[in-house]
């Protein structure tokens, strides 16, 4: 009898240890960073491509930031989702309230492994599953750019999530299934617009985070890549942007690029909803980047 209890206890301890090990934060080390001097000017392109401001810029009088207010990354936006309320943190270079005290390695681990300094997992409302794909030098450039932005004071409260989502450690398991840390080699041929567009769409642009439907554990269903789905922020649907999507089927690549530049559809209706902020970001990129995104969207498999 005593032997059975000892065996049971041993199994519980082993299971707990295995669970703890499986959910541990996995990070990069100093040896994973290249010897590279980051370029803040190149980082600005990553900033707009990555849409950092759309979530992290502090709302002004309850409305989304516009113009230069997009550079004040004090956070505070609240995202209401089926899991609870996510509160967007301060990522301005403020030394205490923002990320001003972070090392380059801290920043890369946050962006590409979803791990905070100190080892806490981030929730995937921060789209590190996409950012993990960005070439590491581009991520380093982005930090150099953010370091030039205004320091904004004020800490943001924690998320308010329901159980079991409130158990942060459990995200380790989620990452085992959904965080693919293999980076793109990047467009080896910079003149190949599809490769350049892929990097922008699948990496920094994180288009799939809204335009790809999610499965019941909140991971992207990659069999329906960019095929649209329910709006993660509640009512309505996010459109299918594969060549089979009813919105884009009749659009030429130049229609898509023009939409991203101007915010107007081929019928000259205007961009709407959360896509407004995305379009304003895309308008800040080079024309070659918008053309590359359009070329990529025309090249991906159509999904009905």
């Amino acid at each position: 009898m005593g032997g059975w209890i000892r065996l049971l206890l041993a199994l519980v301890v082993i299971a707990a240890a295995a669970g703890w090990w499986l959910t541990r934060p996995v990070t990069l080390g100093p040896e994973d960073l290249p010897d590279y001097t980051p370029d803040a000017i190149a980082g600005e392109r990553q900033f707009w491509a990555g849409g950092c401001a759309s979530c992290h810029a502090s709302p002004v009088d309850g409305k989304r930031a516009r113009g230069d207010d997009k550079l004040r990354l004090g956070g505070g936006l609240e995202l209401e989702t089926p899991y609870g309320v996510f509160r967007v943190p301060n990522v301005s270079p403020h030394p205490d309230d923002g990320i001003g005290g972070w090392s380059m390695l801290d920043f890369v681990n946050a962006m590409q492994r979803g791990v905070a300094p100190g080892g806490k997992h981030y929730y995937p409302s921060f789209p590190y599953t996409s950012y993990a794909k960005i070439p590491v030098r581009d991520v380093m450039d982005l930090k150099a750019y953010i370091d030039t932005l205004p320091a904004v004071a004020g800490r943001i409260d924690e998320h308010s999530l329901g159980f079991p989502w409130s158990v942060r450690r459990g995200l380790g398991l989620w990452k085992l299934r959904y965080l693919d840390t293999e980076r793109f080699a990047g467009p080896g041929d910079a003149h190949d617009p599809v490769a350049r567009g892929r990097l922008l769409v699948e990496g920094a642009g994180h288009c799939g985070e809204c335009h790809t439907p999610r499965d019941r554990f909140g991971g992207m269903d990659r069999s329906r890549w960019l095929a649209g789905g329910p709006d993660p922020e509640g009512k309505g649907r996010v459109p299918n942007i594969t060549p089979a999507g009813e919105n884009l089927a009749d659009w030429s690549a130049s229609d898509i690029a023009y939409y991203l530049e101007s915010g107007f559809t081929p019928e000259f209706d205007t961009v709407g909803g959360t896509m407004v902020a995305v379009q304003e970001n895309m308008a800040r990129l080079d024309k070659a980047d918008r053309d590359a995104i359009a070329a990529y969207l025309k090249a991906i498999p159509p999904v009905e």
Partner: protein
Amino acid sequence: MSLRTIHLPVLCVSLSLAALALAADEAVDFETIDESIDTRKALMEDVGAAAKPVGLMLRGERDYDWTVALESLRTWQDVGGEFGKHFPEGSESGSGTEAAPAIWEDREGFEAALTEWSEATSSAIAAAPATLDEARPVLGAVFNTCKDCHDGYRIETD
């Protein structure tokens, strides 16, 4: 103060003024909710139809033609003065409206957005640009007012 203490002439003048005010707004006041929604949708269809030729010019896919652009601008000027009258209380939802609750929560902001649209339209008409290069900034300014208003006061429906 009781009704008896009000002078008859004062009462008459007040009632006449009230009647005048009603008459001026008659077309709108006696519109049903569904009619309001249908009317404003039809007006916005006209706006969209007028946007296409001008948009194609701005995009460089159609030759610049001021007479065509002017026709669109006149359509927007007419609708701009009319559109805001068709958002009565009670027409916040139904009949496939894309009007955002913000129109009723922030009426001043909505009216201001419409005024910006009308002002940009009037400026463009007054400028009467002769070439596409001259037209880009003034017509672009009008198009931007479309986006600004849709951003805050239109919702996306399925």
